[in-house]
């Protein structure tokens, strides 16, 4: 599997993401910069990691979503290339309208940094096919704007079409997200965004590797 990690000024979680992708696939991801106008040829997966692109100015992810490289990411997504956004990456994907809804200020108004229990809600996506629906994974969160919101009609569609990929397990919703939503996918199923950081739970040093199967899922999906 060949992946590319997209960087914007203020992104700071790319090293963990690059390492997780390398552990899972055995290949070093390419890196693209926000001013690039094209992605490297032949990539199977585009990853937008976490951080604080443009200092979260205006709205988290708003300015990154309008940068030159995002036009290439949107075009790739339209062709069916897989796209994963984590944390700020999720915010950027919603701001770019590749995913529905928006990430608002946490309901508790505080930055939350802790390990939550993440429940797999859809086990037939490119990021979850090695897991089972109902599986619960410990997974770190670290964000200030992770409160997922979508209007009722959008929510009904997301829920009805199995597009809620991850939920915070009972009692662990850290940010007030509607329906405990932690991650969603687009209609076509090739774009997934989530607030928690699975790349920080893939080896013993992290306290466990429970989230490694997520990355192995992509490798398997691409090889299939």
């Amino acid at each position, binding site marked *: 599997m060949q992946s590319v990690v997209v960087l914007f000024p203020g992104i700071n979680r790319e090293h963990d993401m690059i390492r997780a992708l390398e552990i899972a696939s055995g290949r070093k991801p390419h890196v693209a910069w926000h001013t690039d106008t094209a992605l490297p040829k032949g990539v199977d997966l585009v990853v937008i990691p976490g951080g604080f692109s443009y200092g979260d100015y205006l709205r988290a992810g708003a*300015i990154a979503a309008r940068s030159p490289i995002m036009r290439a990411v949107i075009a790739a997504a339209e062709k069916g290339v897989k796209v994963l956004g984590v944390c700020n990456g999720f915010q950027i994907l919603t701001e770019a309208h590749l995913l529905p809804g928006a990430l608002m*200020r*946490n309901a508790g108004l505080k930055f939350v940094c802790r390990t939550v229990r993440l429940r797999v809600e859809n086990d037939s996506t490119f990021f979850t096919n090695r897991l089972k629906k109902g599986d619960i994974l410990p997974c770190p969160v670290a964000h200030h704007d992770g409160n997922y919101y979508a209007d009722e009609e959008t929510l009904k569609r997301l829920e009805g079409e199995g597009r809620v990929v991850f939920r915070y397990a009972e009692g662990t919703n850290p940010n007030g997200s509607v329906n405990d939503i932690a991650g969603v996918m687009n209609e076509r199923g090739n774009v997934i965004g989530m607030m928690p950081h699975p790349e920080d739970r893939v080896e013993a040093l992290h306290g466990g590797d429970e989230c490694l199967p997520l990355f192995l899922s992509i490798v398997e999906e691409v090889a299939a």
Partner: protein
Amino acid sequence: MKAIVKIMLRPAVLDPQGKAIAHALSALGFSGVGEVRQGKLITLELDETDAEKARETVKEMCEKLLANTVIEDYEIELEA
């Protein structure tokens, strides 16, 4: 010409920051305060002198960047 863009969360969207402000006001002894909502004000200096054209351009700016219309409404005011 100067444009003033007022951006507020849509009425259906909960505003936890507004809620926190309301709590703080109440703690300070201000009574009789109902719902509090917080928004953003963005001012823009424009070369454009035609109000109609300026409004059109600023509207496009709001749709493309300044507001996230999934959760926010915007109002545009122009000053000569």
